[in-house]
């Protein structure tokens, strides 16, 4: 029942306005909860996001506002401490074309929500579902090989790499001759 309403509401929102620019400020609780129910493979790598995610039109990948909110959260929740601006550090890099758990949104969502072995903490209790999805979308955008037009531009800070809308991962990868992970191609 709840899922049904969620899906319906999702469809409604999907129909309203331009996907890229529309700013969904308030995620209705039923949808939020539906979005939390991802089906993950047993090995924790990849899986399927809930139907409502598609009903909404993959808002966290294509919507500029969500992506920029994700960028905000990336610095607010201290992701930089381990991952830098995506170059990695204590934690893995997002720019080298190598995703330990795959580049799918669900995997990234799961990594943030439930944490991962070797030090990635779970943010389940620190962030809301909406926020985790926004952050996941942004993290995926950092490592994306084609600069999405919806991806955020640079911050008003010291620059450590080109902004997400310029596909830093691709630039780094092209820098060659031997990419960071020789075994990985530009389409992971």
């Amino acid at each position, binding site marked *: 029942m709840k899922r049904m309403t969620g899906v319906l509401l999702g469809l409604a929102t999907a129909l309203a306005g331009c996907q890229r620019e529309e*700013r969904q400020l*308030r995620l209705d609780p039923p949808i939020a909860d539906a979005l939390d129910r991802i089906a993950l493979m047993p090995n924790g790598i990849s899986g399927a996001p809930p139907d409502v995610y598609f009903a909404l039109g993959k808002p966290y990948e294509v919507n500029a506002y969500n992506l920029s909110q994700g960028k905000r959260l990336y610095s607010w929740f201290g992701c930089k401490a381990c991952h830098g601006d995506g170059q990695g550090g204590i934690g893995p890099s997002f720019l080298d074309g190598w995703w330990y758990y795959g580049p799918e949104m669900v995997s990234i969502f799961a990594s943030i929500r439930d944490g991962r072995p070797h030090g990635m903490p779970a943010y389940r209790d620190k962030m*809301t579902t909406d926020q985790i999805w926004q952050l996941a979308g942004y993290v995926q955008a950092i490592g994306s090989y084609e600069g999405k037009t919806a991806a955020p531009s640079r911050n008003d800070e010291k620059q450590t790499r080109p902004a997400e809308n310029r596909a830093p991962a691709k630039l780094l990868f092209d820098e060659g001759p031997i990419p960071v992970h020789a075994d990985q191609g530009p389409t992971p």
Partner: protein
Amino acid sequence: MIRAIGKTCMRAMLAALLADCSGWQSALDAHGPSAVSLKQLIIVIVVVCSLVWMLVMTTMIVALLRRREVRPATPSPHRMTVAVTGAVVATVLIIGTFTVISFLATHALGVAGQDDLTIRVRGLQWWWGFEYIGPNPSDRFETANEIHIPVGRNVRLKLEGLDVIHSFWVPSLAGKQDLVPGRSNELTIRADNPGVYRGQCAEFCGMQHAHMALLVIAQSQDDFDRWSNAQRQAARQPAEEELAAGLQTFLAKPCAGCHTIRGTAATGKTGPDLTHVGSRRTIAAGLFETTRGSLAAWIADPQTIKPGNNMPMVPLTPDELRTVSAYLASLK
């Protein structure tokens, strides 16, 4: 229908007239030296300008309605020169005086001494962070959206723009000054009478520019010392079990990710410091009076109350909501 509109108009006019110099966020309701001098300047200039306007209007009305005799429509160069020079001289005199008095008034503004109370003001989307700085580190403490100042003392505000440009403006005390990222501005305010003065961000700063207010509470030195001592303390450990439960919820849920409550495990930095949130008159940057109810409403659905602000809607059970709001209200 028509009558209804008429009535509303009348009521509106009346309200306007009554409201004229009242209001707790008005340049015409001055309670500090610089605001007072600004008010005087405003009145002088407005009066002079009104006189000029009436003069021009009378000239025009006479010009339009005077009875005229037939005469060749050729301007005599003499009258013209007289006319133009007259206009020039008059204008020069008036604007010259205005320039001089505003220059003097500018110099009167913002004269700060050494022993001043200093407050670091941080403008953020869409709330105000305040950090009291004293001679020794132990004096410093943080609060948000509300400052208390001792009456009759200069207070130096160090204005820092952190995200976008905001503008600090408490009309009853002083003119506005912008908070510009990458630059540091200063503003000195002083209140001569105790009272609560409202201010508001005056530079468009995005989605919730309309709801970025602050309160300045001017009180006697003793009251101020009492208040600042209280603010320096960490939050008291909740004794009652409901409040303890509230604290638990606060720590277990995302709340602690963004907010600090000194003396607890909550050390988030991106939201306002809530150590003594219960002691503040308002929440959500001047949106509501602080009550258990308003706190609960705010926590339950911040995006409906203040759309676009950075506080997420955290799913809570009714119990959690009750206890956490009770706990926050108790943080005096």
